[in-house]
């Protein structure tokens, strides 16, 4: 059984080769003919009983030898692909046996690669076709079509199938995603019930599942019926061990695998019938009919049952599709609603916060946890402390990852595990920063297994290990802790629909926020520029006032001094001045003093802006000041170089005022370079013995030696434009910062340097 012949396909290597069992059940005979020659290549050993010829009489003979040329000509045509026999259009044939006796048989022909396999069953004496038609109409149409709930449909199906087949027990299994089966409907004449019991996935091994999908119906009238070997031309049994095994994948008569015999015997079953329920191309469930003794069901009833199975499958599919569609529509509606709300200006987080209950309801969750732009939104079952969902990121498929056993993936406390068992993670941003988690609580804490759900590994005599079916089907309860109701395909569809919408909305929102931040930054930049310009204007005005005051004070001072000196000299010379004249001179002095006082008031009124010092990045203030000077400049060849020491300590200074110094120095330099062949402005910062030096260098004509000493005095104009208070203002600002400003001698261009202490003691 476990020895696999060389002719076996590679794709069957990992499967138990139950389709190469080389034997049929005893309730029919099998004859396989070559597809092109119609010569008989294989026969089951029981042909005498069913077709009236012994196997050795048939092997190698043309099929016409057995059933006559007329029947051969009437043999149904076969589609090119392999397929299970068409039960609904039976082929009743009559021919003469070996001794001339009349043989009436029902033949189930099907094609299998190079062969046509003909399976012969005895026909029933009186096929009750009318009764079946009637039943079909009455039951199927009126009852099956009606229910739209799954369990209701399953109940009805189980009852009808038991009515038609007469089995002791008809059960309908539904397979979960982990392939374990649950009995969702049962009709039985027995006192015990299997309804609600779970069967482990290992009860139906994968090879068997494959057969269930390919072969809708499997009839085993007698579990312990003799295996009738199939013989090939050479006379050897055509099983997996032989050189030419016969593939019985689509055979109705295929003998029962020993492991299955053992399984059914363990359950006390004598005869069985199973009908696969297939929806959307996948095995959805199974109708399992059990009889506690052998049970033969007529072909016509089998046909009916197959039809019923197909109908049930179709209805199931329709119900499932409807359910899925309904859920999808609900999800799409929610997605649309979200889109609408967010479009109308509601923030995504607010939408989720207000719709949390509806969202959780949609995916059957008890908790919602969302991280969006650093904010956390929680609803329902709240986990404290928050979990790290990172392990689920590797499982994301189309942005969604689900698990029914969260504690198996992430570290959880006992309290958390009590609250949350399963989770669905929805990724809401490419960078993984934003995500949503739906959580489900513990589900169905107790599973009622039909027996302990494990197979026993057994070592065969030939040393090969194989699985043996469960021996006990006694009820066995399993406490399942830390698992939630699994997220199934429909859930995942819903989650994906939601996620698609939320992800899209989040990206739009993120873009909007990024854009807004950019706008704000630009507005802030603009505001700073304006502040700097305003400050420049007002401090220039202040400086102007101060300069005017200073300059006016000089002549006023001189006048006072001269008049006083004059009076003194007159007295020294002993000249008698008329008192009136002396009085007038005194008035002149006091008027000058008053003029000085007036100037003082004006100057006080428009005083320089106060220092608004803070710990600042000097380089930043420099870049800003220079940048501002460059704004109105149209000098395509102007090259500006910042050679800034990035390791400068932060200094205590007024960034706007310092910016203004740079603004003035740069403006001067740029204006000076207007007619220069080389136009290079270089701003350097260096650290020097506890001071920071800022050096502004240009490639203009430089500062003439005769004005070097005066450039920081107001109204000593060395540029042609303006009043010449720019450098005076620079000096005032730098000095207010306890610094110094000077011009360095230079052969080419101007070099202006100012120095600020890093440990500042500000004038206040």
């Amino acid at each position, binding site marked *: 059984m476990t020895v696999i012949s060389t002719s076996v396909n590679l794709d069957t290597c990992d499967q138990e080769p139950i389709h190469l069992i080389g034997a049929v059940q005893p309730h029919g005979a099998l004859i396989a003919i070559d597809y092109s020659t119609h010569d008989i290549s294989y026969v089951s050993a029981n042909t005498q009983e069913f077709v009236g010829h012994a196997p050795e009489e048939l092997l190698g003979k043309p099929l016409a030898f057995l059933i006559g040329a007329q029947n051969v000509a009437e043999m149904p045509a076969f589609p090119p692909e392999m397929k299970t026999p068409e039960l609904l259009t039976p082929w009743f044939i009559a021919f003469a046996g070996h001794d001339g006796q009349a043989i009436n048989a029902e033949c189930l022909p099907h094609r299998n690669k190079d062969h046509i396999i003909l399976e012969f069953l005895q026909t029933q004496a009186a096929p009750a076709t009318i009764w079946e038609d009637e039943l079909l109409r009455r039951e199927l149409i009126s009852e099956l079509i009606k229910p739209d709930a799954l369990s209701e449909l399953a109940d009805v199906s189980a009852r009808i199938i038991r009515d038609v087949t007469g089995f002791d027990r008809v059960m309908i299994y539904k397979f979960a995603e982990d392939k374990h089966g649950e009995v969702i409907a049962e009709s039985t004449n027995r006192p015990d019930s299997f309804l609600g019991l779970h069967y482990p996935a290992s009860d139906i091994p994968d090879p068997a599942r494959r057969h269930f999908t390919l072969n809708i119906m499997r009839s085993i009238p007698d579990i312990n019926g003799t295996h009738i070997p199939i013989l090939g031309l050479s006379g050897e049994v055509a099983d997996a061990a032989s050189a030419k095994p016969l593939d019985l994948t689509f055979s109705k008569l295929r003998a029962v695998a020993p492991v299955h015999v053992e399984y059914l015997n363990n359950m006390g079953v004598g005869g069985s019938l199973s009908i696969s329920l297939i929806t959307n191309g996948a095995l959805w469930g199974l109708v399992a009919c059990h009889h506690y003794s052998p049970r033969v069901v007529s072909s016509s009833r089998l046909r009916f049952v197959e039809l019923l199975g197909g109908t049930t499958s179709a209805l199931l599919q329709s119900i499932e599709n409807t359910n899925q569609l309904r859920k999808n529509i609900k999800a799409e509606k929610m997605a649309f609603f979200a889109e609408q709300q967010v479009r109308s200006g509601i923030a995504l987080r607010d939408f989720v916060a207000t719709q949390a209950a509806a969202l959780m309801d949609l995916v059957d969750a008890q908790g919602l946890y969302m991280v969006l732009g650093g904010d956390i939104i929680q609803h329902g079952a709240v986990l404290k402390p928050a979990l790290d969902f990172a392990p689920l990121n590797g499982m994301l498929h189309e942005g969604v990852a689900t698990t029914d056993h969260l504690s198996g993936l992430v570290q959880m406390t006992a309290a958390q595990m009590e609250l949350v068992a399963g989770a669905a993670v929805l990724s809401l941003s490419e960078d993984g920063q934003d995500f949503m988690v739906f959580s489900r609580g513990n589900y169905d804490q107790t599973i009622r297994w039909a027996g302990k759900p494990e197979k026993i590994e057994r070592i065969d005599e030939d040393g090969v290990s194989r699985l043996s079916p469960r021996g006990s089907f006694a009820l066995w309860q399993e406490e399942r802790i830390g698992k939630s109701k699994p997220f199934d395909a429909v859930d995942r569809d819903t989650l994906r629909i939601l996620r698609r919408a939320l992800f899209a909305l989040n990206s739009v929102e993120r873009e909007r926020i990024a854009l807004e931040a950019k706008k704000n930054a630009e507005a802030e930049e603009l505001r700073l520029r304006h502040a700097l310009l305003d400050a420049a204007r007002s401090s220039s005005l202040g400086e102007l006032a*101060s300069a005017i*005051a*200073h300059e006016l*004070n*000089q*002549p*006023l*001072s*001189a*006048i*006072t*001094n*001269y008049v*006083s*000196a*004059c009076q*003194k*000299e007159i007295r*020294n010379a002993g000249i008698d001045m008329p008192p009136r004249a002396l009085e007038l001179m005194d008035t002149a*002095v006091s008027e*000058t*003093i008053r*003029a*000085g006082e007036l*100037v*003082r008031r004006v*100057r*006080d*009124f428009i*005083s320089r802006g*106060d220092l608004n010092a803070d710990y600042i990045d000097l380089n930043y203030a420099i870049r800003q000041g220079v940048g501002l000077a460059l704004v109105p400049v149209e000098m395509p060849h102007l090259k500006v170089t910042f050679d800034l020491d990035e390791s400068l300590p932060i200094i205590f200074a007024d960034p706007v005022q310092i910016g203004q110094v740079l603004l003035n120095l740069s403006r001067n330099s740029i204006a000076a370079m207007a007619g220069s062949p080389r136009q290079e402005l270089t701003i350097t910062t260096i650290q020097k013995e506890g001071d920071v030096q800022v050096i502004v260098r240009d490639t203009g004509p430089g500062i003439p030696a005769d004005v070097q*000493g*005066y450039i*920081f*005095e107001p109204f000593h104009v060395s540029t042609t434009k303006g009043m010449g208070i720019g450098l005076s203002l620079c000096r005032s600002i730098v000095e207010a910062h306890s610094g110094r400003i000077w011009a360095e001698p230079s052969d080419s261009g101007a070099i202006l340097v100012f120095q600020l202490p890093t440990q500042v003691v500000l*004038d*206040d």
Partner: protein
Amino acid sequence: MTDLAEQFLIYVVEDDDAVLRSLSALLSAHGHTTIPCVSAEQFLQVYDPKERAFLILDLRLPGMSGTQLQNHLHDNGITIPIVVITAHGDVPIAVKAMRAGAIDFIEKPASEDQILAAIQTATGMLFNRQPSVISKKIIASRLEKLTDREREVLDQLLLGKLNKEIADELNVSQRTVEGHRSRIREKMHARGVADLIRMLG
């Protein structure tokens, strides 16, 4: 007012030509010998430490500033009495200069009396006549007469603050500050900030 025993020179360092010449004219009308200098550098060239002299120094100068010159002299052990002249608005610098040892300061434009008073102080210093030291007791008794507000204004004045700044600081009008100032001068028997600094600085 000058006798031979009290011969001395007055160096005037002032970059504004009119101020320099008018001041020199005034001082010579009062019988003083002045040596006008247009810059700190020039002063350092012409200064003769052997002569008995004092210095009237403008703080704002092109090249080496008045403050720098003061520091330079101090660093080189030259102890020439210095009277500082400043433009209005340079009071904070003048206050610093006072702290650094200047004996008086004159705000431009100054009346003849203010100039003569400053020169008297300087002369007294020059001839080791200690400026009339007012006892701490008297100062304390004068201070006691000040109101709390006046004390506040006084503190600000000692920091070299302008009226406008003081007004902003104390949240009052400039006129009020001026009122406080004149009452402070009265109660403290001071002619100006320089006297206040000498008393309290």
